[in-house]
C-alpha cells in the first residue's frame, strides 16, 4: 500500500483525527488482479471507495472488428480466463443466431457439460479465494486440488488447460475422447463429498462467519438497479437465472434448482456458489445420461472444418472449403443480435452487428464482472471497515481480465 496522503485534519474532542486517501493496489494480493481502489479513510473506516480499472485493457472489441469470426474465439477465452467455455458459448450462440443454424443435439449436450464444468471451475476458485482473503488459507489449497482435476479434464477433452477455444460456431471442435465421460462421472462423484468438506472447514467457522455474516448487504432493489446478475443477484433473493427462464441449448431438458438466498451479504454470496456447484453436478450427470450419438458439429463445409481429415487429401471440394475457411473465414448475413447466457459470474451478453462480411462490424461484450464490480461504488449496507471491503470485493468475484476486456 503506497501513496498515503493527508486529506484534512480535523480536531475532535479528544484528539486529532485524520482522513487519508489510501491506494489499495494495483498490485496487491487481495485485489484479485490488477485492480486499484482509492479509499477515503477515516482511521479504519472507509468513507468512500472509487475503483480504477483498465490496467488490463487489451481492446478485445477493437481487435474483434479486425478478426474473422473463427479468430475471435481465442479472444473470448481471455475474458474470464477461469471459465473459457462459457465465453466461447455466448459468442458462438450469437453468431449461430445470425447465421440461423441449428447445432446438432450431441454438440449441445457436450457444450452444456463443458459450460457446467467451467462453472464449477470458476466457483471453486472463489469459494477458496474468499476465505483466503479473510485469512483462512487452507480452503484454497483444497479447492485448487479439485480444480486441478478439472484442469486435467479440460486438457483431456480440449487439449488445453486454460484457453480452450473448444466451442466453435456450429458445434464443438472435437468429440469427447475415449474415456472422457467416465472421467467426468468420476469427478461428479467426488466433488459433492469435497463440497461438504469445504463447508465443514469454513461455513461454521466463527471467524469466517463474523467476517462475512451481515457484512456488505445489498438489497434486492439495489441489486437490480446496480445491474448485478448471477449468484450475486440471487444471493439478494432475486430468483432469476437465464438457464431456467430463457433456456438456451438443452437447459430446458434438465432438471435443476436455482439457488437463491435472502440476506444478500458476503456469506450468502459465498454459500450460493457452493450450492450452485451441486446443481451443476446434477446438470452434468443428467446430460451424460441423456447425451445422444451423432454429429458434434454442423454438416456445413463453409462454416465448420471437415471432421474426416483424410478427406483433405482426396477430395478437391473439401480442400477448397478448408482453404477458404482458413484464409478468409465465412460470411455472416447482415443483421444484429444480442445474446445473453448465464456465465458463472452472471449475465454474459454479446451484441454482434454484422455488415455481411467475414468480420463483425461491432462486437460488444457485456461482461458480468464489469457490472458487478461497479457495486463497490453503489449502495452497500454494513461495509464499514477496510476489512469488510476486502470481504465484499472477494464475494463479488470479479475477474479483472473480464472487467477490463
Amino acid at each position, binding site marked *: 500500500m503506497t501513496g498515503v496522503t493527508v486529506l484534512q485534519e480535523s480536531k475532535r474532542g479528544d484528539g486529532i483525527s485524520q482522513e487519508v486517501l489510501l491506494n489499495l493496489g494495483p498490485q496487491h494480493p487481495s485485489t484479485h488482479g490488477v485492480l486499484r481502489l482509492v479509499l477515503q479513510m477515516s482511521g479504519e473506516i472507509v468513507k468512500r471507495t472509487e475503483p480504477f*480499472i*483498465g490496467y488490463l*485493457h487489451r*481492446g478485445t*472489441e*477493437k*481487435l474483434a*472488428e*479486425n478478426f474473422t469470426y473463427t479468430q475471435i474465439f481465442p479472444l473470448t477465452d481471455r475474458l474470464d480466463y477461469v471459465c473459457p467455455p462459457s465465453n466461447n458459448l455466448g459468442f458462438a450462440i450469437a453468431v449461430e*443466431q*445470425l447465421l*440461423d443454424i441449428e447445432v446438432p443435439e450431441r454438440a449441445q449436450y457436450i457444450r452444456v457439460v463443458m459450460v457446467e464444468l467451467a462453472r464449477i471451475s470458476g466457483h471453486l476458485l472463489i469459494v477458496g479465494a474468499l476465505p483466503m482473503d479473510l485469512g483462512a488459507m487452507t480452503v484454497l489449497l483444497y479447492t485448487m486440488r479439485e480444480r486441478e482435476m478439472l484442469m486435467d479434464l479440460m486438457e483431456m477433452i480440449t487439449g488445453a488447460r486454460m484457453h480452450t477455444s473448444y466451442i466453435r460456431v456450429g458445434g464443438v471442435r472435437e468429440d469427447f475422447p475415449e474415456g472422457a465421460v467416465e472421467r467426468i462421472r468420476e469427478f461428479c462423484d467426488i466433488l459433492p463429498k469435497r463440497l461438504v468438506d469445504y463447508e465443514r472447514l469454513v461455513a461454521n467457522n466463527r471467524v469466517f462467519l463474523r467476517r462475512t455474516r451481515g457484512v456488505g448487504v445489498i438489497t434486492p432493489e439495489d441489486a*437490480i*438497479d*446496480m*445491474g448485478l446478475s448471477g449468484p450475486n443477484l440471487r444471493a439478494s433473493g*432475486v430468483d*432469476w437465472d437465464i438457464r431456467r*427462464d*430463457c433456456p438456451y441449448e438443452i437447459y430446458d431438458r434438465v432438471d435443476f434448482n436455482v439457488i437463491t438466498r435472502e440476506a444478500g451479504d458476503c456469506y450468502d454470496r459465498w454459500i450460493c456458489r457452493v450450492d450452485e456447484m451441486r446443481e451443476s453436478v446434477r446438470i452434468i450427470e443428467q446430460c451424460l445420461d441423456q447425451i445422444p450419438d451423432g454429429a458434434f458439429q454442423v454438416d456445413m463445409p463453409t462454416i465448420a472444418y471437415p471432421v474426416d481429415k483424410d478427406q483433405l487429401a482426396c477430395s478437391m471440394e473439401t480442400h477448397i472449403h478448408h482453404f477458404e475457411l482458413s484464409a478468409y473465414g465465412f460470411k455472416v448475413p447482415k*443483421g*444484429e*443480435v*444480442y*445474446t*445473453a447466457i448465464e456465465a458463472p459470474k452472471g*449475465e454474459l*451478453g454479446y*451484441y454482434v*452487428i454484422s455488415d455481411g462480411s467475414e468480420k463483425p462490424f*461491432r462486437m*460488444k461484450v*457485456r461482461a458480468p464482472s*464489469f*457490472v458487478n464490480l*461497479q457495486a463497490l*461504488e*453503489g449502495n452497500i449496507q454494513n461495509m464499514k471497515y477496510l476489512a469488510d471491503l476486502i470481504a465484499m470485493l472477494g464475494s463479488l468475484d470479479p475477474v479483472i481480465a473480464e472487467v*477490463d*476486456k
Partner: protein
Amino acid sequence: MARPAFCDLIMEHFGDRVGDGGAGIDMHNIEVGPENVVELCWFLKDTPELSFDFLSDLCGVDYYPDSPRFEVVYHLFSIAHQHRLRLKCRLGDPPHAPTVTGVWSTANWHERETFDMYGIVFDGHPNLKRIYMWDEFEGYPMRKDFPQRGYKDAYNPFGEEREGQ
C-alpha cells in the same frame, strides 16, 4: 420474432416521437431521438406492464462515414415479465446524449466506457471521465477512423503516423 404486445403501448404514449425499428432476430427495436431518451426510459421502467427494471447493456456504435455517425444502443430486460427490448438513439457529430444514470444506476460505468471508447458525451453524468484509458490519452480508440495499432509515439513504435506529421 413476433411483435410483442407492449410495443403498441409505447407507440400510443409517444406517437411520432419514437420510431418502430421492427423486429430483430432476438428482440424488438425502438428508435428514439436523444431529446426523448430519458422520458422514454422512465416510462419503460415505471409502467407496470413493461417494468424494464434491468439495464442489461449500454454501448456505442460508430457508423463512420455515415451521417448521423453515432448510435447509442440500450438493451433492456424486465425481470418480472422476462422480456427484452432494444433502444437505439442516433447521434450526430460531436455526439451528445442525455445520461440515464438517474433511471438505472448501473448505466454509470457503461456510459463512462462509451465516452472513453467513442467520445459520446453523456450530459448530466455524475462522473464522466475515462474508465479504461488513462486521462492523458488522446482520441477515442473504438472509433472506426482510429487505427487498430494506435498512433506512433515514444511507447508505440509500431503505431501509424498521425496525419500532418
